[in-house]
């Protein structure tokens, strides 16, 4: 009834090729943006913005990066954590050398370093596939972690071995460092995430996205049609690592404030991979849903006893949390192996004909 395309006739291929061809979807996207940009910064508490929204957006960004590689191009990677680290350390070095430059520009630039490193570690993908590629990306993960510890130049020879985010201003506002307000950091992160999601969405809906999916679905046929695997795979590695690198830089500069190698270890690679799988391989919406599921749900579950006045021991809550999340992951994957994004798509499909399914 509400989500219906009756009466919306597309009279040109341009209209039909739009990313959101249905009017209700376009309204919905503006609504989400309105909520994200206006409502949340105005009414959200500092805790909500700082502990939930900012990390959610950053992990969603990293998931989009991994999704480009794994979901759209079919190359499984366990190096996301390390590529995020490359972005973070690159941004740190950049702001050390160019303290006056707008930090947002530096964050966006630092992704290019991650892209370069990602392409180098993507080279084996031209020869090997599947589990063997997982092993080489794991090698990238360990090698880069080693660099983050053993190359003191990367953290400016700090005695602690950690990178401390200095205070930086952009557009007259303090955006990084301890005295930056959560709302400002949130808006910066949100803008970058929206911008890069838009860019990735453009790529996916065009020729380049199609060549990625061709490689994923049938690489031999793709080659016979005229796709060069070298370009397709390396461009996927580059875009994926770029996005992951920017996410890593944001993680340190707009959320953690300080970081060492543990922030980019293999556990983070797994965390992002879980978000992508739960959310749905090959779906941008899925990246957001997966990040929300894995990041926000535990926080919400933790808050439930407090809100309902139940007197449960904190460690019991933590145990329950693990059990509930674990069970939910299994339940969702049994209901729909293609992730939350597929459930979302099915719900939309059902809604189109509701309430008269015949």
């Amino acid at each position, binding site marked *: 009834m509400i989500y219906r395309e009756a009466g919306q006739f597309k009279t*040109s*291929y*341009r209209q*039909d*090729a739009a*990313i959101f061809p249905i009017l209700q979807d376009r309204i919905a996207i503006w609504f989400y943006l309105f909520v994200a940009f206006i409502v949340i910064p105005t009414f959200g508490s500092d805790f909500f913005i700082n502990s939930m929204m900012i990390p959610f957006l950053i992990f969603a960004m990293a998931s989009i990066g991994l999704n480009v590689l794994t979901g759209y191009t079919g190359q499984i990677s366990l190096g996301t954590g390390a590529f995020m680290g490359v972005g973070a350390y690159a941004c740190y070095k950049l702001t050390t050398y160019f303290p006056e430059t707008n930090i947002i520009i530096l964050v966006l630039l630092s992704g290019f370093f991650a892209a370069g490193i990602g392409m180098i570690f993507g080279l084996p993908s031209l020869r090997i596939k599947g589990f063997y590629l997982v092993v080489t990306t794991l090698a990238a993960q360990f090698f880069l972690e080693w660099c983050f510890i053993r190359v003191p130049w990367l953290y400016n020879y700090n005695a602690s071995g950690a990178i401390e985010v200095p205070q930086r201003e952009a557009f007259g506002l303090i955006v990084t460092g301890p005295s930056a307000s959560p709302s400002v950091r949130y808006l910066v992160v949100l803008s970058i995430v929206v911008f890069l999601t838009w*860019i990735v*969405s*453009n*790529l996916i*809906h*065009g*020729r*380049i996205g*199609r*060549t990625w*999916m*061709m490689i*994923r*679905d*049938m690489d*031999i*046929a*793709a*080659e*016979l*049609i*005229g*796709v*060069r695997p070298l370009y397709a795979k390396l*461009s996927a590695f580059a875009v994926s690592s770029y996005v992951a690198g920017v996410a890593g830089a944001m993680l340190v500069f707009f959320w953690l404030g300080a970081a060492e190698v543990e922030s980019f270890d293999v556990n983070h690679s797994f965390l992002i991979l879980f978000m992508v799988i739960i959310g749905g391989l*090959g779906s941008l919406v899925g990246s957001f849903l997966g990040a929300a599921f894995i990041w926000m749900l535990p926080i919400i579950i933790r808050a439930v006893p407090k809100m309902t006045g139940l007197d449960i021991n904190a460690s019991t809550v933590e145990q329950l949390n693990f059990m509930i999340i674990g069970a939910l992951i299994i339940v969702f994957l049994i209901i729909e192996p293609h992730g939350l994004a597929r459930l979302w798509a099915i719900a939309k499909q059902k809604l189109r004909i509701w309430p008269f399914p015949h």
Partner: protein
Amino acid sequence: MNAAAPQPYTTEDGREIGGVLMEMKNITLKFGGVTAIKGISFDIQEGEIRAIIGPNGAGKTSMLNVINGFYHPQEGEIVFRGETRSRMRPYEAAKQGISRTFQNVALFQGMTTLDNIMAGRTLKMHRNFLWQLLRYGPALDEEIEHRRKVEEVIDFLEIEHIRRTPVGQLPYGLQKRVELGRALAAEPSLLLLDEPMAGMNVEEKEDMSRFILDVNEQMGTTIALIEHDMGVVMDLADRVVVLDYGKKIADGPPGEVQSNQDVIDAYLGVPH
């Protein structure tokens, strides 16, 4: 066998067949100790429907793989449009205008019919990465322009209703048709079809035959096809080359090939 250079001719139904488009000279292809193709020569003339037939394991599919650069023959040379071709990658063959379908449908299962056929036009799209990032201006114009071409193919093959369906969900006969569409979208000058009728019922075979004839007549595309259904081959093909155990045993118009004793022996067997 026919040593003289093939001449342009006119078919019974009045189609003009031009000069030689592709010539295979003494092709030999070995996999380790197994010789899949032994010194085969034949040619494909412009505008004709050329069938390659033979019993299982005769080397037909290997021959197609040689033609589009997937296998590299140890001996022999391939002349395409008057140019001798050196060792080339499938990508380059595609660029020269050779496209094909596969024996086992090789569609991009996760993509829609529309995207699969759009994929066939990959080589014709040139807007660079930066425009693609914005999906605006020239990149979008290009996308729309190719969409128009793709819609013509969809219209031609009568698959409008499955435009938005992921091909993995389509029945086999339709998948074969989408695959033909993907090959046609590249506007090939030489179309290779590897068993286009395999696993189809009579009605689907009739449809597919009509599409093949229409492609040949309306678009003037040269077609080389492998097929096991002799009725189809005899009806469609202008000339037939017969392979057996990697050797050529006959080459000529369908009627002539049909009565060739070697061909009958190869298909029915000979008493020892």
